[in-house]
């Protein structure tokens, strides 16, 4: 008999706030976390707004913040979200003698996490001084001299995308299976899926899983702007993320961390912790199509959803709520709609399918985990979060996207979709926990 896997803790640091209750309250009220970018001077950028985490101070979560002071934004978000999630799940942190009943080599970590920002002023400064625009050459000797003098070693180390995991390891003393993956916008859904598989196999009892990422830095912003992936609705940031609307013009870059504690049912029962929901299915596929576009017929997306349904041993008819990837790009929203129609057939228009990116923006590596948290809350609270800013429906997109207002509904099974650049497709299915 394979282990059942349950969720016993959640934590979030995101543009709508940094407690589960406050974030959920705002989602139910349909509030937007999007505003002018303040982390760096983006005033002249073609997209000058984003979904930032505001006034964040990770030190309030920790007894020993000095071990983590050099952490990049993603690492610091991860620490706050992990501290919240561990508290809820009764996992001891910052102690060499935990008394939470979890052997440390049975406690693992799996995050979808992204790179840390460059030390921008220093980074650009070294190039300004060493680049010869006439010859098109860099003077590497000069560059290295300045780089050695100005770059801070730990800031450079923190650009590695495994660092959020590293900080959580130090925070919790976890010695079990530990990985960090980066499959673009699908990373944290993949992390949660693979973490589930690790427990199901019996290789860990508890996994700290989810995602952490901030691409709101000059080069990240530049990259997405050049791909024309971002909304440029500078005159109205709060309405810019409008998934499934005819006037959608791209996603809004966000940042944050979302952590879920995944645990074998037997461990959760032994420890007597509250069970929030059960993870019943995971599916993963790749488009193998183009690096720039999704497969036109949504081949990979369909395959991943079907794989997750098969893994969960349920029919498409059993799904009560679909938490879409819903980025607000022309391409994603129409191809995702195609995928839902192909899999859910006659049920497609009946199953509510909303996008919380309309409020949160796109947390990239952390997106899927934040969205899965909204699915857990939809189940426990009986409320489906809305797709806000959906006032001008796209006639081609005719599913029930839960426009503009949250809705009361009994949700027993929720399915969360994440699709990433390069054709990465990951889907996780959760269920209201019942003994049998």
């Amino acid at each position, binding site marked *: 008999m394979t282990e059942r896997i349950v969720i016993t803790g959640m934590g979030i640091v995101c543009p709508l706030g940094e407690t589960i209750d406050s974030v959920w309250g705002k989602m139910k009220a349909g509030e937007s976390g999007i505003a002018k970018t303040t982390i760096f001077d*983006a005033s002249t950028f073609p997209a000058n707004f984003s979904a930032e985490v505001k006034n964040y101070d990770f030190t309030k979560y920790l007894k020993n913040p000095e071990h983590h002071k050099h952490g990049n934004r993603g690492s610091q978000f991860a620490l706050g979200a992990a501290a919240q999630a561990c508290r809820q799940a009764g996992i001891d942190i910052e102690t060499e003698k935990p008394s939470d009943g979890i052997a440390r*080599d049975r406690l693992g970590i799996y995050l979808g996490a992204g790179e840390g920002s460059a030390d921008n002023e220093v980074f650009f400064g070294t190039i300004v001084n060493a680049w010869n625009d006439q010859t098109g050459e860099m003077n590497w000797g000069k560059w290295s001299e300045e780089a050695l003098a100005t770059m801070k070693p730990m800031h450079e180390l923190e*650009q590695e995308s495994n660092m959020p995991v590293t900080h959580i390891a130090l925070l919790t003393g976890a010695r079990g299976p530990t990985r960090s993956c980066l499959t673009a916008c699908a990373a944290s859904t993949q992390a949660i899926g693979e973490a589930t598989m690790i427990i199901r196999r019996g290789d860990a009892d508890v996994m700290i899983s989810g995602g952490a990422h901030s691409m709101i830095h000059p080069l990240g912003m530049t990259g997405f702007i050049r791909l024309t992936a971002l909304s440029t609705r500078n005159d109205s940031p709060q309405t810019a993320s409008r998934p499934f609307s005819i006037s959608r013009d791209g996603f809004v870059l966000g940042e944050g961390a979302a952590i879920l504690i995944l645990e074998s049912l037997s461990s959760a029962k032994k420890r007597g912790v509250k069970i929030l929901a059960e993870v019943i299915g995971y599916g993963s*596929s790749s488009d193998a199509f183009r690096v720039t576009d999704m497969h036109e017929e949504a081949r990979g997306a369909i395959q991943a959803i079907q794989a997750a349904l098969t893994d969960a041993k349920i029919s498409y008819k059993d799904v009560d709520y679909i938490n879409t990837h819903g980025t607000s790009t022309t391409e994603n929203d129409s191809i995702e709609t195609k995928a839902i129609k192909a899999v859910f057939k006659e049920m497609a228009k009946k199953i509510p399918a909303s996008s919380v990116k309309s409020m949160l923006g796109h947390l990239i590596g952390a997106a899927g985990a934040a969205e899965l948290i909204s699915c857990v809350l939809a189940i426990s609270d009986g409320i489906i979060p809305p797709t806000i800013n959906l006032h001008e429906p796209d006639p081609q997109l005719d599913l029930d996207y839960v426009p503009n207002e949250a809705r009361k509904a009994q949700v027993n099974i929720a399915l969360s979709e994440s699709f990433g650049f390069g*054709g990465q497709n990951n889907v996780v299915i959760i269920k209201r926990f019942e003994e049998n």
Partner: protein
Amino acid sequence: MSMPRVAITGLGALSPLGLTAKEMWDGLASGKCGITSIKAFETTNFPCQYAGQVPEFKPQQYVPKSHRKAVKLMCRDIQLAVGAAKEAVQSSGLITKGIDENNINIDPTRMAINLGAGIISCELPELGPAIAKSVTDGKFDMRKWGKEGLEAVTPLWLLKFLPNMLACHIGIIHDIQGPSNTITCAEAAAHLAIGEAGKVIQRRWADVALTGGAEAKVNPIVMIRQCLLKRARTENDTPPESACRPFDADAKGSVFGEGAGVIVLEELEHAKKRGAKIYAELAGAGESNNINPVYEQLEPDAKGLQIAIKKALAEAQITPEDLDLIIPHGLGIPADDLAEVRAIQNALGQTAVKIPTWPTKSMLSATGAAGGALDVIAAVCAMTEGKIPAARNCEKKAAGCELNITGEPQQKDIRYVLCCSYTYGSQTAALVLKKFDGKTND
């Protein structure tokens, strides 16, 4: 139903010792060193002068016509990975879309890919012209960048540097439609990816998985980071081939490099049914965490690595006495090497000092996310050839580094090999590879 066994049925490598797995092995077996002076960029006044560089190659030769336009979207890490993947698929006898689209012999939905990748740093000269447009009074000006600078960045620039693009390009070329993951745990990434790919096959989500890792560290910003973290050798007082000295008393830091290693993992019965050559079996994988507030180093007793080694042995259902060879991570960074020795000794007990131990980075350099994959390929070749090559640059062992490392090659029947890795930061990983004995479960 018993747990499926996982076979290795294909190998591919682009390494500082050559453009194929065989060239790498021949180089290793004959004691060659792939570390030279840096050729990739002008190094006058640059703090480190040596690197492990892959010989010149044309990325186009690894890419079918249908995907050739995309070569310009491939940074060097991707090019290396694509090259190694082609050799791995070819050596497996599988015919994918990328090998011959008229004779495909594998269901694309039953193939998975799982690669280790590094953080891919942008090419600074590529940003030079855009940054030059964004200067006021000799200083970088973000407002100018937002208006004029970013316009000078090529539109698809970001896609070149996303770590998952290694797996995505390979997936497109070979039409891999099953699960795809990219592990970004620096120097432990390839071992972790290979371990996870093995599990994907064991849970029957794929029959075949391409796995391994690639990274191009011969990039000024990557090299400078290693200097800043005091991991790179910056004393250039020896010839390049003597610079990287794992476990040696004269070790003064590691030498970084580039490479790609891709292996084909396959469910054993699937491999037997199609008459594939079985190079070896993946018998066990273990992983854990280093817990150390000094982030750039292993904890002194490397407990995280001990745990990983013990788990890998347990999964392979063997005892330390069964091991015939250890390929350690062995970087040539004295404190890390010493901690790794302690981990091996604590995990394996008294047997540790008897098992032949062969560090490869003295010849291959530290190739980041590729390293673990190159070591697995070296281990498979050692098993196949029944030979442990001479260890290089370990002439006088550093105090405390009592392992069985010798400068003489040995002929030996090798049944089990242990490969170890860890990253600065925290993740640790170990794999156990087993010689294929021709027997199946039933």
